[in-house]
């Protein structure tokens, strides 16, 4: 029936080794196939392109300003819980942003600016804990936990695989008198889904 045809074609597809132009394949199906693929590609590339067109424009912003904005996002505003000085509109945040720019203009580097504020406000001024000392714990946990979880998942999968697949293995229990029930299964499947009748042959019961 219908299921056989596409199969051939796919094995043909498989022989196309390089991931190069999808329209290399012949046949009406392949052609349509590639149209769909192309349109998808086109859309995505256009979108990405749109994002990228901003790149040359970014050069218009002085380098220091981009850097200052990056630093703004690493410093919390001390008087408003949960906001960085980039986000906050209070006076103190404005003054801190100003100080960041002054320091950069005087030639300070990113780390120096951060250190300056840590010395005055404590580490909690940093939006993320520093990757040193005890605070490494904050960073190590995800780095350890995630591979462990994935490894655990793989182990669990292996354990689930160890026994032979139950449904394909002979089910314990006698098969006496199964035929009438098999017939009923076929009948119910036919009634439930007329269009997708599974083809069942007499070879089915064992």
């Amino acid at each position, binding site marked *: 029936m219908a299921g056989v045809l596409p199969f051939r074609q796919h094995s043909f597809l498989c022989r196309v080794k390089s991931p190069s132009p999808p329209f290399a394949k012949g046949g009406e199906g392949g052609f349509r196939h590639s149209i769909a693929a192309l349109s998808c590609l086109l859309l995505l590339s256009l979108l990405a392109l749109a994002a990228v067109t901003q790149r040359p424009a970014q050069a218009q912003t002085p380098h220091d300003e981009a850097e200052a904005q990056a630093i703004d996002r690493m410093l919390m505003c001390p008087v408003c819980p949960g906001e960085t000085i980039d986000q906050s509109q209070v006076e103190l945040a404005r003054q801190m942003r100003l100080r960041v720019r002054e320091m950069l203009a005087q030639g300070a580097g990113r780390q120096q600016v951060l250190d300056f504020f840590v010395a005055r406000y404590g580490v909690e001024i940093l939006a993320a804990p520093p990757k040193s000392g005890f605070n490494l714990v904050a960073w190590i946990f995800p780095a350890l936990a995630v591979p462990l979880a994935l490894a655990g998942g793989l182990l669990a999968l292996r354990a689930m695989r160890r026994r032979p697949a139950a449904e394909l293995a002979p089910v314990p229990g006698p098969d006496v008198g199964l035929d009438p029930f098999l017939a009923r299964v076929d009948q119910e499947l036919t009634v439930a889904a007329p269009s997708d009748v599974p083809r*069942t042959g007499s070879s089915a019961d064992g």
Partner: protein
Amino acid sequence: MEFVVGAALAIFSAVVLAYPFLTARSGVESHAPVLDSPVPPPELASVYQAIRDLTWERQAGDLPEDLYQQQLDAYRRQAALLLRDAAVYSAVVGESDEALEQEVATELAARGGQTPQSSQDTVA
């Protein structure tokens, strides 16, 4: 005024809640779920669904014919086994007579160390 509405609400609730007890005492048929005639086991639906899935996947060209046939047969057999067990079970248990059901359960427990699934074994 507000207290009247509140009281009315409380009385209405009480009546609705008391109704099942009243009907139960006066012998009117209770609304409690009754065990009706042998229900096909719930697993059956999922096996049928699996078969439809399988068919869909074969139609989509995901499955080689031999693998499809092999799995289809396995599923059909599983469904048939479920149907047969349900039929046999209901034949033995009869009209869901609780005493009989209990008897079968104990016998089974003695034989295989396993009780059949029923709402009764949850209470223990």
